[in-house]
C-alpha cells in the first residue's frame, strides 16, 4: 500500500523531488513577486518624477498646501520625538564612545568617529526609520483605505490625476522632511554627546571637540548627506504609496500591505546605505 504524503519521510520526498519542486516553486514565486514589485516600484517612481516636472505649475493652489501639510506631518510634528532620540543617541553612543576613546588616549580620533557614525550612518538612518514608523505606515493605511473605498476612481472622475494629488505631495514632503530631521538629529546628537562627556569629566574642551568635527567633515559629506536623506525619503514615500495604491485592496488587506511596506522600506534603506558606503569609500 502506498504511503500518504504525511507518512512519507523527508528523504523519500526529496528523492521523489517533491521537496525540491516545492522549494523551487516557492522560491520561483517569491522571485517573480519580487521582480514584479521592482518593476511596479520603478514605474511609479518614474511616473511620479515625470508628473512632478510636467505638472510643476498645475494646480499649485491645491498641491502646495498639501506639500506643506506633508512637511508638517513628516517633519515638524516629529521634532519632539526626534529630539528625544537624538538625546538618547548622544548619551548612549557618542558619550560612551568619547569615554572609551579618552580611556585609551585616542581623543584625537573623536571627530572621525563622530562624523562616520553620526553624520554618515546613524543620523540619516534613524531619521528615516522614524519617518517610516510614524508617517510611512500611516501613508499605506490612508492610501489603501482610499483605494478600497474607491476614492481614487472618484478623483479620476473629477479629472484629477491621482499621482499628482496623492503621491507627489507625499514624495516631496517626506524627502524634504527626512533631510531636515536628519540635520536637526545630527546637531542635537553631537551636542548631547558632548554634554554627556562633559558631565563624565572627559578633559575635552568644546572648542577642541567642534574643531575635530569641522576638520573631519569634507564638503562631500554635506552633498552626500543631502542625497542620502532625499533618497531615503523618496524610497519610503514611493514604496508606501505603491503598497497603498498599486492594487485595489480590500479593507482587510490594508494591514498586510502596511507590514509588507515596512519590510520593503527597511531592505531598500539598507541597500541604499550600502551604495552610499561604497561611494564614501571611493572619495
Amino acid at each position: 500500500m502506498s504511503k500518504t504524503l504525511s507518512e512519507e519521510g523527508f528523504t523519500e520526498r526529496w528523492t521523489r523531488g517533491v521537496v525540491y519542486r516545492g522549494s523551487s516553486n516557492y522560491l520561483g514565486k517569491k522571485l517573480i513577486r519580487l521582480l514584479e514589485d521592482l518593476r511596479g516600484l520603478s514605474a511609479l517612481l518614474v511616473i511620479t518624477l515625470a508628473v512632478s516636472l510636467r505638472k510643476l505649475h498645475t494646480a499649485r493652489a491645491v498641491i502646495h498646501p498639501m506639500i506643506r501639510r506633508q512637511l508638517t506631518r513628516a517633519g515638524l510634528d516629529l521634532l519632539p520625538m526626534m529630539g528625544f532620540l537624538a538625546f538618547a543617541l548622544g548619551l548612549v553612543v557618542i558619550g560612551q564612545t568619547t569615554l572609551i576613546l579618552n580611556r585609551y588616549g585616542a581623543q584625537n580620533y573623536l571627530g572621525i568617529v563622530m562624523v562616520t557614525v553620526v553624520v554618515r550612518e546613524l543620523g540619516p538612518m534613524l531619521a528615516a526609520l522614524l519617518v517610516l514608523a510614524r508617517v510611512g505606515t500611516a501613508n499605506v493605511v490612508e492610501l489603501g483605505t482610499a483605494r478600497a473605498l474607491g476614492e481614487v476612481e472618484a478623483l479620476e472622475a473629477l479629472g484629477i490625476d491621482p499621482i499628482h494629488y496623492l503621491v507627489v505631495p507625499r514624495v516631496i514632503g517626506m524627502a524634504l522632511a527626512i533631510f531636515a530631521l536628519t540635520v536637526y538629529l545630527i546637531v542635537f546628537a553631537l551636542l548631547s554627546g558632548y554634554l554627556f562627556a562633559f558631565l563624565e569629566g572627559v578633559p575635552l574642551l568644546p572648542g577642541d571637540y567642534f574643531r575635530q568635527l569641522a576638520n573631519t567633515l569634507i564638503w562631500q559629506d554635506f552633498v552626500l548627506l543631502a542625497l542620502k536623506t532625499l533618497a531615503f525619503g523618496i524610497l519610503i514615500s514611493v514604496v508606501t504609496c505603491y503598497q497603498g495604491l498599486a492594487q485595489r485592496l480590500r479593507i482587510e488587506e490594508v494591514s498586510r500591505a502596511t507590514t509588507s511596506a515596512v519590510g520593503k522600506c527597511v531592505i531598500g534603506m539598507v541597500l541604499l546605505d550600502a551604495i552610499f558606503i561604497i561611494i564614501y569609500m571611493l572619495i
Partner: protein
Amino acid sequence: MDTTNSNIPAIAATDVDVASTWSQRVRLRGVNWTVQRGEYWVVGGPHGAGKTDLLMTVAGLNRPAAGSVRIFGREIVNAAEKEFLEQRARIGFVFKGGGRMFTDLTVAENVALAICYHRNCSLEDASAEVASILEMTGLSSRASETAQTLGSDWLPRVGLARALALKPEVLFLDEPGAGLAARHREWWLNFLAQLSAGAPQAGGRKMTLIAATNDFALWSGRGQLYGLIKDKQWQVVGEAAEFPQIE
C-alpha cells in the same frame, strides 16, 4: 473634430466588451449604445449584473476590454491628456452608496476640490461657486461637516454636488436614491427631473442623464429612455417600456 457640434452623440459605445473594475473579467459583451445630448436614460439590472462597470466604461473611467467608446465624438481612452481632461470635465459621475466622499475633507472642500484643482484657485476664490452648488443640493447647512458626522442620507448628495462642480453636460448616476429614506429618494428624483429639464440654477441647459437602478418601478415615468442588463446582455428597451420588475 468639433466636439461641441450638437449632432454628435454625447456617448457612443460600439461593440464594447465591459470588464469588471475588480477582476478585469468580461461582464458584458457586444454593447452597442448611443446616448444623444439631453436624453434621460435609466439603466436597469439586478444586483451584480454589471451596471456600475457599464457606466464606468461608457463614462471613460474604465478601459473597455474590446470595442470603442466615444464621448462627444472622441475616443477618450487613448486621448492625449489635455484632450482627455477637456472631455472629462464635460462628464460627471455620482458613485453609488456614500458617493465616495473624500473622507479627510469637509463637504465644502469636497465640492471645491475639482474647481480649485482645474482653475488653480484657493478655497476662498471658489467659495461663491461652492455656496451656490451647496444651496442647489440642500447642503448649505452641512458645508463644514465631514463624512464621519454627515448622515448616510446626505452622503450621496455630496457626491452629486461634487460631480456638478465642473458643470458637466452628461451626468452618470449609479443607483441614486438607493437605500435612502423616502423623503430623500423623492428629492433625488425631483432634482434629476429638474436637471433634465434644464434647471435655472444649473445654468438652464438640459443635462444628459444616465441613471442605473435595480428597481425599474421606482423610475416609472421618470426617464425618457430605458436600457436593461439581462442574462449578461445589454438591451435597449426604448421609450414606451413596460417596466420589467427586476428580480
